[in-house]
């Protein structure tokens, strides 16, 4: 392993690593989470029970895996990438085999003390696995179609399993996240064009795999006024809540749509609507700005990294975070169909919180280990 210190730097000491943690980044994350606690407090009509208090505990707990992920040597992550992917895959399979049905979908695995949603971890694991895969491939190789078969399976298999749960949102995120890593890994653009054509031809097949409620969500998305009391109800009520919020909102704790239960799932998937209803356009845009800062921060960290793996990992995490934000907010604004993707750091839910924080841990890890050289398997 001599080649690792080829850059002439000494091995990073623990203290160096601690210094490498971006505290300003953590402050940003804490600020967004703080908004989340406040909104969960509001969602419970001004009570920390049942959501805000538990969410705070989860946030505190999630700090531990995040810091651990940040401080472990990046080469460990590199070596473990496929194993982690495999474990995540097993968990997803376990859900398919004997998961807990909740909200009309089989997404959860019950571990007794806590319920786990493995598909959230799959998002991280896929980024890790693809980052490793593309780290090992030269630019020319990455362009060759034969080399894309393996990573295509890495993306397609979990996506299909998740879609079957059924969880359209997570499947979309896995596919989009995979595509982004393909793109960053240097895959030629004609491959994406071919993939798009392939997807179009496969669309009828995919349609047949969808459950009725997913189909109705898609048709409702295309024409929400078709069925204002049925499937279109959620999105219509969400738009009413957003629109009636106006510039400055109805005031904290004053959102009528959310507090009078017109807004569905106000503490989870539709929490952005509640924020924009109570805090208005000013609040909504401020939150989007904070998210943009986080994503930009992630890009900056990733691009300063000198190893391919680190860059791909960092960019993948940041892009994944972007996908959470975009899919969720675009959904509540009626820009895309209703799919179950939480608003990261804010929506009530433990697994997503831990998964997102774990992602940030990896991002910081990339920042801390930006000068660490990772050998290519082929070079050894």
């Amino acid at each position, binding site marked *: 392993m001599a080649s690792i210190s080829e850059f002439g730097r000494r091995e990073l000491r623990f203290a160096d690593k601690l210094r490498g943690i971006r505290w300003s980044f953590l402050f940003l994350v804490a600020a967004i989470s703080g908004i989340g606690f406040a909104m969960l407090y509001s969602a419970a009509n001004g009570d920390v029970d049942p959501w805000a208090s538990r969410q705070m505990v989860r946030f505190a707990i999630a700090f531990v895996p995040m810091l651990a992920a940040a401080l472990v040597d990046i080469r460990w992550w590199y070596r473990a990438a496929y194993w982690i992917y495999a474990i995540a895959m097993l968990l997803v399979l376990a859900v398919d085999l004997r998961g807990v049905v909740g909200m009309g979908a089989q997404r959860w695995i019950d571990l007794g003390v806590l319920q786990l949603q493995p598909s959230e971890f799959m998002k991280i694991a896929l980024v890790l696995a693809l980052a490793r895969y593309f780290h090992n491939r030269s*630019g020319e190789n990455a362009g060759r179609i034969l080399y894309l078969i393996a990573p295509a399976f890495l993306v397609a298999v979990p996506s299909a399993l998740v879609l079957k749960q059924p969880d359209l949102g997570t499947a979309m995120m896995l596919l989009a996240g995979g595509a982004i890593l393909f793109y960053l890994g240097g895959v030629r653009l004609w491959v994406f064009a071919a993939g798009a054509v392939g997807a179009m031809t496969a669309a009828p097949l995919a349609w047949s795999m969808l459950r009725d409620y997913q189909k109705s969500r898609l048709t409702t998305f295309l024409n929400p006024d078709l069925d204002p009391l049925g499937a279109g109800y959620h999105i219509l009520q969400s738009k009413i809540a957003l629109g009636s919020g106006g510039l400055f909102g109805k005031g904290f704790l004053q959102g009528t749509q959310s507090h009078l239960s017109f807004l569905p799932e106000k503490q989870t998937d539709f929490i952005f609507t509640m924020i924009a209803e109570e805090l208005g356009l000013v609040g909504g845009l401020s939150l989007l700005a904070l998210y*943009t800062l986080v994503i930009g921060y992630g890009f900056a960290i*990733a691009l300063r990294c000198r190893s391919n793996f680190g860059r791909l990992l960092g960019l993948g995490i940041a892009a994944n975070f972007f996908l959470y934000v975009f899919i969720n907010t675009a959904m509540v604004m009626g820009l895309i169909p209703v799919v179950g993707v939480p608003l990261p750091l804010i929506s009530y839910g433990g697994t997503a919180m831990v998964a997102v924080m774990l992602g940030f841990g990896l991002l910081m890890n990339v920042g801390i280990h930006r000068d660490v050289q990772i050998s290519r398997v082929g070079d050894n």
Partner: protein
Amino acid sequence: MPRDMQRQKLLTRRAALLGAGQGLAIAALAGRLYQLQILDKDRYTVLSEENRINLRPLVPPRGRILDRFGVPLADNEPNYRVVIVPEEAGDLDRTLDAIAKLIEIGDNDRHRVQRDAKRKHSFVPLIVRTNLTWAEMARIEVAAPELPGVSIEQGSIRNYPQGTGASHIVGYVGAVQEKELNGDPLLELPDFRIGRSGIEKSADLKLRGSAGTSQVEVNAYGRVVRELFRAPGQPGQDIVLSLDAALQEFVTKRCAEQQSVACVVLDAWTGDVLALVSSPSFDPMLFSAGLTPAMWQELATDPRNPLSNKAIAGTYPPGSTFKPVTAMAGLESGAITPESTINCPGYIQLGNATFHCWRERGHGGVRLHDAIKHSCDVFFYETARRVGIDRLAEIANRLGFGNPLGIDLPGERGGLIPTRDWKLATTGVSWQQGETLIAGIGQGSVLATPLQIATMAARLVTGRQVVPHLIRAAGQLPPGGDRDSSEFAALRVTPRNLSLVIDGMNAVVNEQGGTAYASRITDPAMAMGGKSGTSQVRRLSATGRAHGAEANLPWKDRDHSLFIAFAPVGAPRYVCATVVEHGGFGSAICAPICRDVLIETQKRDPARKVPQPEAVAETMTIPPIPQAPPLPSRASPG
């Protein structure tokens, strides 16, 4: 490593492009947010308000019906009931089953709820059961979490404190029927009642008031979260009647000993109806609470007709009480004078027909005074023959017969005064002179309501076109005093002729040998005048009647007994008309009723009493009682 450098450059470029793409996507989100929250704000604000704000109409309290002194004849009582909102209940049948386990629900109630749920808006609360006891309320409240859309409401139920006594006047209310729904949401409210008879019906729109609204905030499930605004609406107006509730009660009790009676007491001077009794009566609370088909059947088939207000809707041959009309017609037309003597041998011959006097051996030669006093049929046969039917009818109409008087009650009938034209038009047969004779004693085709007979007496004693009425005022009690009778136009008859007829009616009661002498009022200050009448239900021979065969006849075939009276005889203020269906001889049955009623009326003297203000004045000053205008004496007491 140029290859690595190249790859890094590619990655950086693609990362930059990706970042730009994400930036664009977030800008698109911001744009969408701007569109929704700024450009479309107004539209969505309206939708949001429509979501949460529900307008609910409030039933205005129905106006009370008061007697002339402010005694309530109809008012509202609080009443607790279970209501169900079908929209919130979901499975209506299952919820009704759950309620039925807690309190008793009849099949009728259940069917009514199921029927109403289909024809009303699903957000309109439907009454499941009324008149809950405290225990029943508690059971429902405890189980409330398992009963979606079910709640306890306080409503009001129409209450009739006078019971059966004034039910024909006050009437009753009933639930709104499907065909009456006109889109007014007020009519869809379960508590709303429409007046179905009596004053409740004729003054319904004034009693109703106008609906208020309650603006409530509801959540997505339609449950009321809080009330935002309440406009109480306009309560219905109180209706003040001319009726004297205490007198009405007295008359009701006095009539109760007879099978079927109508009795009217008027203030002749003002036209105020002081009492108007039709006996037997019914309990208006039965209608207020909901009548069972069996009870309805019993009321509707009773031969004594309790549901009909006989005082205004019963028409009877007025019999001898019509003789003052014939007398007036004779005097006014000049066919007779006070001095004209007509011989009564006990019958009168007209062509081949013989018309009997009630007194088989006749009255001998009689003048007007004695003819009225003894109720000589032959005298009035002859008078009517001389006058002719059309002039007789003209005077009868002027005295209030032949057309409805326009009393403020539904269902008033006009009776009938026959004329030549009427006979020809309705039967195609020309008038026979014999019919004129029969009409002259108030029989044959002549029909009148007790109210018309009383009005005739009032017009005779005042010389004015008195029109009876029940409603004195809507809203507040009128301030003190009485209205001036001058608002009634003069009768256009010679006052001396009126005096002559009244003089005869005085003799009927107060002169020895008068047909109602036995029923005279001995207190000279209260003495009454009057006229008895007996009207045939079926044709009997004069001899049969004279032999007193009446008592042996079945009730339905006996004659009606009538009496009209006025008092005090020197300056008549009150008139009373009584009809006892199938009562037999008029002076024997009806005259004592009139006597007792007029004594009571004069003791109470309601026309001269001032309504008492409800709040007691803090100073003990007694307001001066306005004096009634002095009445000209038209009749000399015998």
